């Protein structure tokens, strides 16, 4: 793993996190971060330190999520709720187009809306990587999505390293956490040890350093950095879930047909929850509408899921009509074809798909099952009914 981004490091007390929020607001950023809403930690606008989930933690397992009191005053004593930052960068619903038709003439109305300037506070290391993954998907050499690119360009990123992990986390397998190594403006490690409650803040960019300076941090020594490193190392050691990534792409490609797909399809509800909570799933659908007089029309883009039948609909029916083929599409895309398409895995090991699957399907288990049992003798079409 590459070493940490170089930059100034400082120590601050808990109230300084509140001052950080105000400093960012003063500089024109809309601060978003974790907050408690409807029994879960979600991302929303933060206006003061009191909006953070102080003293809350989560109990997560496959198909289970519950908020609990942590018994301390930690500001970042949890990991990940159901939402990811893609809700801001790649909005669930956005208008792509407005058009008018007057006397038969078609006009595309081009209203550039002001782009929001977001500061994300509390980006977990796996989430930071998820943003990099989305960058590779949506900012391409041939095409770029202006909606994503515009929001991404203005972003201020404050990572929070994990000193605790959820049982569903497997970032160590994916090489994405629990400590952020790159891609942030500021990275925070919360130190809550032996009566001490402080935050070690590392700046990764010049704009990060400028904001850090405004907080008048105490100078951090090698001991402080060492302690922060130790806390995240301890978290890494707690992680039990594993995804063996060795030749994973080849494994998936060699197993388009495998009895495990039928097995998982008998449990999968095809609800698409995993795609909604996944921080990198990017698929969208569009809907066109017009007013009753047929003079104005709009085109909206919404998140879509490869688990729906309509996703693969072409004239004559859906290409992926079985649940098996849809689960296989999702997992093979995430872990294998993604690498070919975008030069890296589509999975960052956040484990949301495990927690939020209503029947608790765990992709790490599915991969293990495929790895451990031999592929079925081909059931490819030519063997089924003599077709080429």
């Amino acid at each position, binding site marked *: 793993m590459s070493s940490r981004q170089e930059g100034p490091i400082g120590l601050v007390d808990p109230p300084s996190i509140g001052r950080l929020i105000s400093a960012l607001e003063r500089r024109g950023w809309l601060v978003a971060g974790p907050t408690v809403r409807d029994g879960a930690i979600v991302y929303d606008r933060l206006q003061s330190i009191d909006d953070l989930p102080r003293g809350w933690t989560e109990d997560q397992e496959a198909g289970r999520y519950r908020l609990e009191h942590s018994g301390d005053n930690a500001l970042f004593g949890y990991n990940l709720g159901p939402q990811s930052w893609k809700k801001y960068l790649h909005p669930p619903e956005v208008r792509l*187009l407005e*058009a008018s*038709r007057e006397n*038969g*003439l*078609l*006009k*595309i109305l*081009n209203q550039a809306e002001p782009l929001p300037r977001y500061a994300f506070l509390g980006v977990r290391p796996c989430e930071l990587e998820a943003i990099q993954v989305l960058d590779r*998907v*949506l900012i*391409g050499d*041939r*095409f770029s*999505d202006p909606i994503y690119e515009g929001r991404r360009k203005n972003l201020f990123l404050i990572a929070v390293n994990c000193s605790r992990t959820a049982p569903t986390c497997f970032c160590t397998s994916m090489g994405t956490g629990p400590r952020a190594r790159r891609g942030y403006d500021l990275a925070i490690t919360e130190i809550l040890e032996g009566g001490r409650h402080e935050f070690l803040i590392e700046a990764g960019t010049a704009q990060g350093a400028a904001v850090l300076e405004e907080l008048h941090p105490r100078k951090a020594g090698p001991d402080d950095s060492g302690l922060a490193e130790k806390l995240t190392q301890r978290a890494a050691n707690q992680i039990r879930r594993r995804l063996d990534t060795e030749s994973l792409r080849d494994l998936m490609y060699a197993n*388009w*047909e495998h009895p495990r797909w039928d097995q998982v399809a008998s449990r999968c509800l095809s609800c698409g929850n995993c795609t909604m909570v996944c921080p990198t799933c*990017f*698929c*969208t*659908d*569009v809907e*066109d*509408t*017009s007013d009753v007089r*047929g003079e104005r*029309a709009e*085109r909206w883009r919404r998140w*879509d899921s*490869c688990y729906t039948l309509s*996703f*693969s*609909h*072409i*004239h004559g029916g859906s*290409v*992926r*009509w*079985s649940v*098996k*083929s849809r689960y296989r*599409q999702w997992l093979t*895309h995430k872990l*294998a*074809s993604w690498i*070919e*398409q975008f030069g890296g895995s589509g999975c960052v090991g956040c484990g949301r798909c495990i927690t939020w699957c209503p029947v608790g399907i765990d992709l790490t288990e599915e991969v293990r099952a495929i790895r451990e049992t031999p592929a079925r003798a081909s*059931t*490819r*079409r*030519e063997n*089924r009914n003599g*077709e*080429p």
Partner: protein
Amino acid sequence: MEPAPCRVLHVGRETHDTFTLTLEVTPEGRAEFAPGQFSMLYVFGVGELPISISGDPGVPGRLTYTVRVVGRATEALARLRAGDWVGVRGPFGSAWPVEAARGMDVLIVAGGIGIAPLRSVVYHALRNRDAYGRLIILHGARSPKDLLYRADFRHWNRQAETRALTTVDHGDMRWRGRVGVVTTLFRYVRLVPERTIAMLCGPEIMMRYVCAEICGNHRIPPSQIFLTMERNMKCAAGFCGHCQFGPYFICKDGPVFSYEKVKPLLGIHEL
């Protein structure tokens, strides 16, 4: 990328369910295309859909499409009349290998509406007749009333070194032509494997049979066979995720693929 409004010049009926649409490209739009590429056509308030360009790449300022009515958006396209407007994005996607085919015999095999994206190859080849060897066009349709471009076929058969054959799955009382699936036409043609490049478009099942026929019986190597894949498509820029076919996005890696590349994927059910 926003659609460029283009004006409908002409709508011509081809068959009971298929028509050809010719657009005049406005300065905001792009009229240049390579045979095999497609556009995203936007019908006001109804939707946007991928349609291959079926016109002559040598005619500037025009874009021509042949569309079969199968649902909401294609029905709306069919209602357009000269003077109406359509939004156009593109052209997108990969092209037929018309450069690599220079000096070779060109074999075109189309099923149904699949002849549309291949017609621009025929236009191109006839315009540059000396650059290509023999031109063999095989077209299969469900029934006589589904045969497309009948006048074009008559015209092509009058050109030098050109054979354009048609067949139908089911004939009718008046049909005097060939009956049988498109692969039955291979008994009328002689192919020279080293100098043949094949271009296929039609239902997946048809293309699999044709590939088996020309690889197996006619010894044309997979690297000299090209075909188009079809999947649902919303954005044409690789962002909507709908058109994935294994590792490929059909909108930008395709729609034209070499058979060599997609051969391992073609046999996988529901991919």
